[in-house]
């Protein structure tokens, strides 16, 4: 791959202007670029920029582990230089001279592509010492995990880079003041950083606020779709070619596995933006839409979700460590037909009590359980009344 020299022109311009920080932050504020939970990026940039520590870091979170989400892998495979430019720009803005891209250990192909792109960028002096003779140094390194969902949480990721188990840290202090090796650290997602060159090129006002939607499940054309925030779900469904085999839509998880499920009749009326989904009792999260048709067994889906959280709970906080396993055992009981109606109450009780944890993993698990029982209680009751069934073990 040859570097398209059109790339990095925003980076070059920024360095020529001796890194006009306030301008970058202003444009990003106008563009209202948001992170995963709808928090503004400009705010955290501002905090780190105003911190005058001797060393600051920028981390790119490429630990894409959220089931149903594959946009970051797509960006790294198709446009690595855009991402590198975004990291360099944000790094220079906050005053970081060292950056790390933390890529999932399973992503051998994206790691190889990013490594190659990084070498190209160093050779062209887009990174390294005295970039474009501006006197500014910026080093970017690739590092990787080794299979842990929780390392997508920013403080767990920092622990992992420091060479420890990926256990989330208690916050505050926030990473913007005490992050990697105790220094102020900006942690941003791949998609967020890859957007930044575009925003600065088009100007915050003109930026079209597009999000990448990963669509998977029972649809005809699954894939990554770049759409403006606020697109109606109906339109998106038409775009992805509708449901496979002319079946009917049953439910959607709009923000990856950790977002509460929304039944068809509600989701068809929704627009895909942070606010409407929060109002509908779910969240946009990572924009990974998992679409299910009418044949889907909701108890089975919840069982798989519960297993995922049980496996991935890091074990630091008791409510999550014990609660996720307990949820799995009860859902497993119901799925295999040994459940009782009382078990549903227990499930609701457990999920209301997984709180006061350091990170959001346990809360996500309990939100999933609550949403499944709220919308599909009848299916659970049917499974219980049906009694013992032999399922294929997989």
């Amino acid at each position, binding site marked *: 791959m040859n570097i398209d020299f059109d790339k990095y022109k925003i980076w070059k311009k920024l360095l020529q202007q001796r890194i006009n920080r306030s301008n970058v932050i202003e444009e990003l504020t106008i563009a209202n670029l948001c992170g995963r939970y709808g928090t503004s990026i400009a705010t955290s940039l501002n905090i780190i920029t105003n911190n005058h520590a001797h060393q600051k870091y920028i981390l790119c979170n490429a630990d894409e582990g959220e089931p149903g989400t594959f946009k970051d892998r797509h960006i790294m495979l198709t446009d690595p230089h855009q991402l590198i430019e975004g990291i360099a720009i944000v790094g220079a803005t906050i005053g970081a001279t060292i950056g790390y891209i933390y890529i999932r250990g399973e992503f051998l192909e994206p790691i190889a592509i990013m490594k190659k792109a990084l070498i190209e960028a160093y050779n062209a002096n887009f990174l390294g010492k005295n970039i474009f003779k501006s006197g500014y140094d910026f080093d970017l390194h690739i590092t990787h995990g080794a299979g842990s969902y929780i390392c997508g949480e920013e403080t767990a990721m920092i622990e992992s880079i420091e060479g*420890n188990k990926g256990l989330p840290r208690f916050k505050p202090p926030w990473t913007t003041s005490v992050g990697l090796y105790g220094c102020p650290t900006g942690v941003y997602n791949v998609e967020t950083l890859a957007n930044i060159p575009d925003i600065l090129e088009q100007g915050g006002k003109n930026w079209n606020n597009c999000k990448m939607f990963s669509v998977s499940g029972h649809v005809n054309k699954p894939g990554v779709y770049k759409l403006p925030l606020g697109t109606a779900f109906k339109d998106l469904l038409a775009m992805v070619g509708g449901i496979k085999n002319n079946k009917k839509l049953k439910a959607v998880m709009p923000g990856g596995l950790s977002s509460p499920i929304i039944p068809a009749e509600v989701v068809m009326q929704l627009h895909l933006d942070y606010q409407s989904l929060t109002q509908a009792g779910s969240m946009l999260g990572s924009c990974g839409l998992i679409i299910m048709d009418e044949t889907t067994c909701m108890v089975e889906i919840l069982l798989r979700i519960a297993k995922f959280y049980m496996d991935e709970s890091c074990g630091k906080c008791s409510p999550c460590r014990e609660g996720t396993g307990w949820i799995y055992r009860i859902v497993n009981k119901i799925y295999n037909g040994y459940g009782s109606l009382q078990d549903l109450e227990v499930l609701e009780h457990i999920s209301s009590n997984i709180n006061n944890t350091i990170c959001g993993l346990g809360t996500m698990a309990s939100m999933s359980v609550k949403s499944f029982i709220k919308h599909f209680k009848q299916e659970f009751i049917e499974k219980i009344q049906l009694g013992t069934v032999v399922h294929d073990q997989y």
Partner: protein
Amino acid sequence: MLDIAIELPLEITSEIDAWILKFPKQHKKSAIIAALTIVQQYNGGWLSKELLNAVANYLEIPKIAVYEVASFYSMFELKPVGKYKICVCTNVSCMLCGCKEIASHLKNKLNLNFGESSKDFKFTLKEVECLAACDKSPVMQINGKYFENVTIDVIDKILAELK
């Protein structure tokens, strides 16, 4: 745990040294995940206690710190694995697209359950979480290489080619 540590060969230590340079001088420990990954690959896909001790010695950190990391991350194997490590994603998106048939076919064909290795250590079958290729589900990985949109026919073809 055994206290015996073996010397890591030069080709391995030079690779680890390159990683150490990425991090600040006083934070050699940061290279641990990379070091274990390199050593695991060198040792045919798994980490013995001797090797864990060797990594601890080389990075000048307590052995327990290495054991902790090696047992926390799911990609590190602490028992011998087969020549071909087959990882099948069984998470929701793949489940909706039929990973159950894929998984049971693999299990029958290899006569293995998830987490088991064949007696001749040719195959290991493993259940993994989302591999972030849900648009091409069902997905599986053989020694790190992705196989997307797999079907039973594709599996038969792949398995026949693996020697």
